C-alpha cells in the first residue's frame, strides 16, 4: 500500500524548525484527512500538524520534546491507492524517486534528515535568480534594504567620522533604498550652504552613547506618584535630601527585590547586577554626566545625603572621575527640574533601565477613604527599558513598586 509522508510544515515566514510537543496519534491509529495529529511549538505559537488524507499511521519518526527542521519527515501514513487518487497527494515513494533522481550525487543522507525540496522541477530556461538564504530558507531581500551600507560607503563615512544615524536624513537612491556615496555627497554639498559649528567632545560623547543605546528595542512606561508625603518628609529633614535621592533609594530597593529586571543581555546570556549601584544624570554645559552612587540598597536615605550632595556638586563642576561614572546598573534622571511632566529617557548603552521623573503638578486625586477628590501634588515616573530583557508587565511591576516606595518615604 502506498504511504504518504507527514512533513514538518513551514509554520510562519521565518520559522526554521519546531519542537514536537505531543504526538496525538500512535502507530496503527486510523486518521482522517485534515486531522491534527502532532502538536508542535515554534518560538511563536503552538500548532497542530494535519494529515493530507485518510489513512493509518504506519510510522512515526520523531520524539516529543525534540526540535525538527521544516520539511523533516515526521512519519508516514499508509493510504489506499484510491485515497491517493482522490486527494492527489504525493506519496512517499514518488517523492523519494524524484529526490533520488535529482540528487543522485549525494545519496548518503540519513533518514532522520530527510528533507523534501518545496519547489518542483528545476527550470533552467531562465537564469535562476539567486535566492539569498539562511540555513536554506529564503530571506526577504528587503533585509538588505535601506540599512545596507556598502564597504565603500562605510569607508567614506569612517573617513568623515559619520555614523549610520548621521545619514538617516539622506534619501537613498541605491538598491532597496540604500544610501550611496553619491547620495551622501549630494547631501553634504547641500549642507554646505547652512551655518555649522564644531560639536564639543562632551556632545560627541553623549551622541555616541545615545546612538549605541538606540540600537536596542527600547520601550517606556509611566506611572503616577502622589508626592505630598515625600515633599513633607523632605521638608522635615535637615539637611534636605534631594528629590532624586528618594528616587535612587526607591529604585534600588525595588530592584533588589527583583534583580533580574536590571539584567543585561549579551548574546545568549543575561548578566545580573553584582551590587545596586545606580547613576544619576546631571545636566552640565552641552552634555550630561552620570556619576554612580554605590550600594544604595544597603544604606538608609538619610545616610546617603552627604555622599549624594557631594557627587552632584562635583559633577556640575565636571570634577568627577571616570571611575565614579562607571559600573552602574541603571540610571535615574529628574527632568522635572526643567518643568517637564513627561519624557522617555534613554538608558546608557551598557544599562537596561533608566528611571525618570517629571515635574509635580497639583491635581485633584480621588480618595476612596473620604469618597471625594482631594488636592495633591502628582508627578509621573517613567521607566525606559530594553525590551529584549524586560517586558511591559515586568516594567510595570517594578515601576508601581517604585511609586509605592516613594509614597511611603519614611520607609526609605
Amino acid at each position, binding site marked *: 500500500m502506498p504511504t504518504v509522508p507527514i512533513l514538518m510544515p513551514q509554520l510562519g515566514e521565518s520559522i526554521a524548525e519546531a519542537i514536537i510537543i505531543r504526538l496525538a496519534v500512535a502507530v496503527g491509529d486510523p486518521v482522517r484527512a485534515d486531522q491534527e495529529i502532532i502538536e508542535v511549538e515554534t518560538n511563536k505559537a503552538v500548532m497542530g500538524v494535519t494529515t493530507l488524507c485518510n489513512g493509518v499511521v504506519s510510522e512515526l519518526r520523531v520524539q516529543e520534546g525534540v526540535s525538527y527542521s521544516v520539511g523533516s519527515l515526521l512519519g508516514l501514513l499508509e493510504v489506499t491507492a484510491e485515497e491517493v487518487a482522490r486527494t492527489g497527494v504525493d506519496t512517499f515513494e514518488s517523492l523519494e524517486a524524484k529526490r533520488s533522481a535529482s540528487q543522485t550525487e549525494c545519496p548518503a543522507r540519513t533518514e532522520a534528515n530527510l528533507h523534501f525540496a518545496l519547489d518542483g522541477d528545476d527550470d533552467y530556461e531562465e537564469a535562476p535568480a539567486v535566492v539569498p538564504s539562511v540555513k536554506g530558507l529564503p530571506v526577504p531581500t528587503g533585509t538588505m534594504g535601506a540599512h545596507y551600507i*556598502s*564597504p*565603500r*560607503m*562605510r*569607508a567614506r563615512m569612517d573617513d568623515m567620522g559619520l555614523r549610520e544615524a548621521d545619514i538617516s536624513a539622506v534619501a537613498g537612491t*541605491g*538598491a532597496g533604498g540604500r544610501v*550611496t*556615496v553619491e547620495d551622501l555627497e549630494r547631501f553634504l554639498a547641500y549642507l554646505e550652504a547652512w551655518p555649522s559649528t564644531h560639536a564639543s567632545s562632551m556632545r560627541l560623547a553623549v551622541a555616541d552613547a545615545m546612538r549605541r543605546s538606540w540600537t536596542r528595542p527600547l520601550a517606556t512606561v509611566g506611572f503616577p506618584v502622589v508626592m505630598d508625603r515625600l515633599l513633607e518628609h523632605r521638608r522635615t529633614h535637615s539637611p534636605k535630601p534631594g528629590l532624586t535621592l528618594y528616587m535612587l533609594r526607591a529604585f534600588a530597593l525595588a530592584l533588589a527585590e527583583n534583580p533580574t529586571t536590571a539584567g543585561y543581555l549579551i548574546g545568549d546570556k543575561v548578566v545580573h547586577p553584582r551590587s545596586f549601584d545606580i547613576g544619576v544624570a546631571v545636566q552640565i554645559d552641552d552634555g550630561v554626566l552620570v556619576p554612580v552612587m554605590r550600594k544604595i540598597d544597603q544604606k538608609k536615605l538619610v545616610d546617603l545625603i552627604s555622599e549624594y550632595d557631594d557627587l552632584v556638586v562635583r559633577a556640575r563642576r565636571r570634577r568627577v572621575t571616570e571611575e565614579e561614572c562607571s559600573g552602574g546598573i541603571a540610571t535615574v534622571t529628574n527632568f522635572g527640574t526643567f518643568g517637564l511632566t513627561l519624557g522617555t529617557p534613554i538608558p546608557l548603552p551598557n544599562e537596561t533601565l533608566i528611571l525618570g521623573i517629571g515635574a509635580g503638578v497639583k491635581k485633584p486625586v480621588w480618595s476612596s477613604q473620604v469618597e471625594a477628590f482631594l488636592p495633591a501634588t502628582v508627578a509621573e515616573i517613567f521607566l525606559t527599558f530594553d525590551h529584549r530583557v524586560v517586558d511591559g508587565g515586568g516594567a510595570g511591576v517594578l515601576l508601581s513598586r517604585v511609586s509605592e516606595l516613594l509614597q511611603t518615604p519614611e520607609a526609605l
Partner: protein
Amino acid sequence: MSVTYIDAIREAQETLLRDDPRVFLYGQDIATFGGAFKATKGLSEMFPNRVFDCPISEDAMIGMAVGAAIEGMRPIIEMQFADFSSIAFNQIVNQAATHYYRTGMPIPITVRLPSGGTPGSGPFHSQSMEGIYSQYPGLIVLTPASVSDAYHMLIDAVKLDDPVIFCEHKFLYRWLKAKSINGDHLPIGQARIIRSGKHATVVAYSAMVHEAVRAAERLQQDGWEIEVVDLRSVKPLDIDTVLASVARTGRLLAVGEAFPWGGVTAEVISRVTEEGFHLLDAPPQRLNARDTPVPYHPKLWAAHRPTPESICQALRKLLAF
C-alpha cells in the same frame, strides 16, 4: 595596409629569430607547412635549421625546450592548440616552473598556446588554460588582446628569463586588424586602461576585452560610463591598476572566457576584496564561460562564453545595486 593579430605573432617570431641566435622554434607542422594557423609561415625558409617540425609529443616538446634552455637557448614552442598543452602539463608545471626555484637556474622558454573558442571548434580546440597555469608558481602567463600587444609582448616574453605561457586568442588571429604593430609598448606585468569611465570597472583580458568594450559602448547610450581594464598579463597580475580603477568607479565586473570555477576572474575579485574592500560600492561580479565543456554548435558556443549581451546584463545588475 593592415596587420592582423596572427601577422603580429609571425612578425614577432621573425624579429626574434633575426635578432637573437638563441631563439629557435619547435612545434607540430610549423616548418614547411607554416603552422596550423600560419603563425610561422615562411620562417623555416628564412631561417634554415631554426624552425623544426616535431613529433606529436607535447610532453617531450616541453622537456626538450627546458633542456635546450639549460644549455642557453631560448626556444619558442608552439602548441597546435592550447588544449593539447594538457599533455605537456607535467613538463610545464613541474619541470619548467620549478627549475629556477629549485636550482637557481632560470628557464627562458616561451610556450605559445592558441587559446579560446571559435565557432565550431568544440570541446578540444577551444580551451582557455591561463587560469590553470597561473595557479603554478614559476610561470608568467600572458594574454595579449591587441595586435601591438601580440607583437611586443611576444618579443618581451622571449627576452624574459623565466618560462612564459603565451596565450594567443584564435578568434583574434584574423578578426583583429590594426594599421600597424606600433603601440604604447607597456612592460610585461602592467595592465592597460583601454577605456575610461566612472560608473563601473570591467576587468578583462584576451578576446574578452573586445566583448567588454562593445558592452561598454552599448551602455554608453544609456549614459553609463564603463571603464575597461585589459590585464594583458594575468600573471603577474597588475592589481594596482585594477584597484586604481575600482577606486574611481566603486564597482567591479571581472570577465573571462575560461571555465567558471576559480581562475583569473576569481583571483581578481579575491584580490580586490582583500586589498580594496573599502573601495567597493557593490558586490563584485564575475562572468565566465559556463561550467560545461565548450560546445560545438555555434549557437551553443555563443551562449557558452561571455558576450556583449551577457556582459551588459551583468553590468546592469551591478549598476543597479
